[in-house]
């Protein structure tokens, strides 16, 4: 079992460094074993340096930075050991425009092998989807799924607004 973990860790750590360059160009991210002498029980640590800032503890990172580091970690696991599907509920809520684009670049890294279901309020995320579902409550308390748009390039801004409100 230690071997399966160690092999996976080594793949995922390499993938994390690569995806980190997409999320934080010019920055540096690494995964490391908290206790390398004890492969059966060691934990996994994350080091993250956005851009040219100095490396410091993760808690000091900003809300948006923390979201993006966390997603980089999760996506590096899924990229190396693809799951059939992945569901993300408003994971982009703290991201500003620039980081939102980088998040969508990370998403693009997964789409070949993993089906994605993303809940979001952000317009750019809506535009990045292949398909769009609108959820609403025309009768209060009862959900209605009001439309599915195939290939959202065909979705006009008006429809997107209508789905959102």
């Amino acid at each position, binding site marked *: 079992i230690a071997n399966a973990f160690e092999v996976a860790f080594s793949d995922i750590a390499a993938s994390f460094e690569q995806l980190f360059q997409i999320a934080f160009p010019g920055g540096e991210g690494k995964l490391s074993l908290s206790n390398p002498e004890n492969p059966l029980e060691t*934990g996994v640590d994350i080091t993250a340096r956005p851009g040219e800032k100095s490396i410091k503890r993760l808690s000091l990172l900003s809300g948006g930075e923390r979201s993006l580091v*966390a997603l980089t970690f999760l996506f590096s696991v899924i990229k190396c050991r693809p799951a059939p599907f992945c*569901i993300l509920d408003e994971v982009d809520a703290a991201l500003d425009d620039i980081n939102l684009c980088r998040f969508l670049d990370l998403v693009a890294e997964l789409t070949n092998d993993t089906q*994605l279901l993303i809940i979001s309020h952000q317009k750019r995320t809506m535009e990045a*989807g292949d398909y769009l579902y609108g959820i609403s409550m025309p009768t209060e308390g*009862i959900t209605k799924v009001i439309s599915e748009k195939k290939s959202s390039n065909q979705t006009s801004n008006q429809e997107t607004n209508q789905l959102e409100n």
Partner: protein
Amino acid sequence: MFLKSLVLKGFKSFADTTKLDFEPGVTVVVGPNGSGKSNLVDAISWVLGSQSPHAIRSGKMEDVIFQGSKKRAALGRAEVSLVFDNESGTIPMDFPEIKISRTLFKTGESEYAINGSVCRLMDVADLLSDGGMGKSQHTIVSQGEVDTVLNDRSEERRLVIEEAA
């Protein structure tokens, strides 16, 4: 191997029978606050066998049954079915489609089924584990939960990698 469709009836705010069809690729779900988007995510966790009411924001499991509103009486049961496309044969069963269903009655009784045949929770768990969906903790990211992986102790991050390995 990907999600093909989801049917909800009486699950949380989905009082009316509702069907969603999915394609491989990226599907984005949008809608106003409180309309039912996260309830959709809960339904998928639930039909995959989640035993924790807390993970789907409930106090006890019966909370997932539609509790009624001013215009509609409460229902007696919640039912969710999820269909997988299995053309790739990822799940070692001779079916091109595999349907998992879960029903909960107001009395507390619970029922699971695979392709319409009643089975035990353990059969569902085994099937998902064969399909590479054994532990979905890193593949379903709930609202507000993105950066838990940064707060986790090192050992918990190890678990994420071990389960994916």
